[in-house]
């Protein structure tokens, strides 16, 4: 490194350190802005991961959905079971299964209020979900009105889980407008899926129980699952199947299905937009705080910078000092921001049971954003350097 550049780095770091107390509030502001960005990303991850938990768990190589289907939320539009039967006869297809997904409410014996649940119906003899606990316990669903409860459901279900833990069985009345006829589900086992932002808990029941409880017609399938024989090409089978069921169902490979589910939240709901806007607000706030640190630095050293210009240093040297100070601010505040973000995320994840978390790539991306903030702030602060004028040094 050239001596002038090394000197710029030394000067930037020393001047930052010299003004650490004076810039303390602004530096804390930078850390908080970056922490908010990280928390936004963690929450967005939680949204995507919770929304994709069920789609990921589906035991399918190819998925059939209604032509009007948008995402696996609440009660998706149905497709005729006949389309699934057509798929069963296609070359390369090993087996098919149906999933019924409906939203409902159960009564809380403890509070007397209602809790929103996702009721998933399946044939207890079919492989529908690739979740070990479900595979082990789903035969229990053959008994009418039996249910498996998601152990990761929100805290409102804590009492139900406690009763199940104590007695090995918990009664859970379904809420229907005609209260006298409300069926009572018997929780006979647990599994782990996790709540989403919109659903408090998930109950797994047999298709027949769902039909009996809610009157769901079994020829109307929410999601059709197709598993392929070993060696079959999912793309080719999906294309052939799409031609067979055209107009009645849409056919998606597993990867396309998961990409569409994620894309729905990212692009077709305001939720992704809200998180991304939050991220941008964090960036803007971060730029303002870094700019405050840099402006303080420049203002406190204007005559000294003017002396350097008189000595033959170029304005670009001063810009390099400011830029390196900005980078130092971003790098030095990041570990604190990350630590705080991990703490906040852990507390929020415990409280909501949502899969909030930060991946290495997210941390790197936010660090890159922080450096981008630093670059923007350095660019703005460099304008202030024009006030460093050697002519002002003369009496």
């Amino acid at each position, binding site marked *: 490194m050239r*001596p002038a550049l090394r000197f710029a780095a030394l*000067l930037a770091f020393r001047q930052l350190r010299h003004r650490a107390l004076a810039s303390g509030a602004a530096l804390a502001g930078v850390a908080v802005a970056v922490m908010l960005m990280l928390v936004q990303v963690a929450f967005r991850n939680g949204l995507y991961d919770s929304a994709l938990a069920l789609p990921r768990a589906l035991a399918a190589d190819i998925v059939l959905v209604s032509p009007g289907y948008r995402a696996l939320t609440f009660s998706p539009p149905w497709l005729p079971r006949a389309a699934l039967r057509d798929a069963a006869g296609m070359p390369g297809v090993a087996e098919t299964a149906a999933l019924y997904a409906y939203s409902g409410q159960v009564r809380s014996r403890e509070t007397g209020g209602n809790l929103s649940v996702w009721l998933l119906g399946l044939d207890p003899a079919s492989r529908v979900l690739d979740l070990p606990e479900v595979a082990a316990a789903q035969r229990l669903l053959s008994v009418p009105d039996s249910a498996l409860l998601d152990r990761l459901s929100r805290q409102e279900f804590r009492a139900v889980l406690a009763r199940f833990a104590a007695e090995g069985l918990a009664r859970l009345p379904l809420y229907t407008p005609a209260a006298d006829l409300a069926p009572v589900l018997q929780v006979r086992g647990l599994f782990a899926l996790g709540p989403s932002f919109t659903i408090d808990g998930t109950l797994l029941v047999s298709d027949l129980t769902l039909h009996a409880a809610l009157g769901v017609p079994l020829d109307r399938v929410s999601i059709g699952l197709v598993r392929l024989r070993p060696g079959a090409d999912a793309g080719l089978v999906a294309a052939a199947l799409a031609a067979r069921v055209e107009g009645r169902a849409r056919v998606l490979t597993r990867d396309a299905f998961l990409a569409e589910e994620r894309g729905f939240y990212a692009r077709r709901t305001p939720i992704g937009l809200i998180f991304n806007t939050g991220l941008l607000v964090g960036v803007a706030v971060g730029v303002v705080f870094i700019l405050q640190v840099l402006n303080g630095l420049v203002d406190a*050293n204007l*005559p000294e910078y003017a002396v350097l210009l*008189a*000595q033959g240093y*170029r304005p670009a040297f001063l810009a390099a000092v400011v830029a390196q100070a900005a980078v130092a601010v971003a790098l030095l505040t990041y570990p604190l921001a990350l630590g705080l973000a991990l703490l906040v995320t852990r507390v929020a994840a415990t409280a909501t049971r949502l899969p909030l978390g930060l991946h290495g790539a997210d941390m790197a991306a936010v660090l890159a954003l922080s450096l981008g903030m630093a670059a923007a702030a350095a660019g703005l602060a460099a304008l202030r350097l024009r006030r460093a004028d050697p002519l002002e040094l*003369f*009496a």
Partner: protein
Amino acid sequence: MSRAVAALRGVGHGFGSGPRRRTVLRGIDLDLRAGEFVALTGPSGSGKTTLLTLLGALRVPEAGRVCLLGQDMAGLDAAGLAALRRRIGFVFQRHHLLRSLSVLENVEAALHALPGAEPRRDRAAALAMLEAVGLGGRGAEPTARLSGGEQQRVAVARALVRRPALVLADEPTASLDGGTGRAVVALLADLARSQGCAVVMGTHDERCLDLVTRRLHMEDGMLRQTEQAA
């Protein structure tokens, strides 16, 4: 005869335009030679500062020619002027040392801007210069720990460590008490003489005038009097 450091011919300069136009330098002719210690005196507003800034390659004249360190300033861009300033030392009324750096680092800072800067050699030069100004052994101290006179001596070391051909000092004693100010100017004169560089010192301080080799007096933008010291 010693070499020419600066030659000014018919130099004029002013500020503003139209009715607000104010001419501050008129027809300045001046030759500076290596080894000279020149005092530039005159009342406020006489043009001393503007002449110093022209000699410091901090501005170019509106009229006339300035040949500085063998280079005609006409047509020099900002980069050319900055390159010229690397051969000039400055001492200001206030020291303006970088407070976050040590005494030694402040002196070294003057060397990093030079082409061919070499850290180890620069450090040795800065240490030697601190020794020369009587601050040997205090290089590691923060500048805030020094007295006003000591800080101005660091400023002198900073100006001379590059072995410039010309040193410009603007009221270097104004912030110091009489004895300290005179000591600083005496130090500057000694070191400049030993390095063979020219010094131009703008000053109101009559007590230091016996230390100079020539005195230039300015009034109304003109050099009124040129006095060779005894």
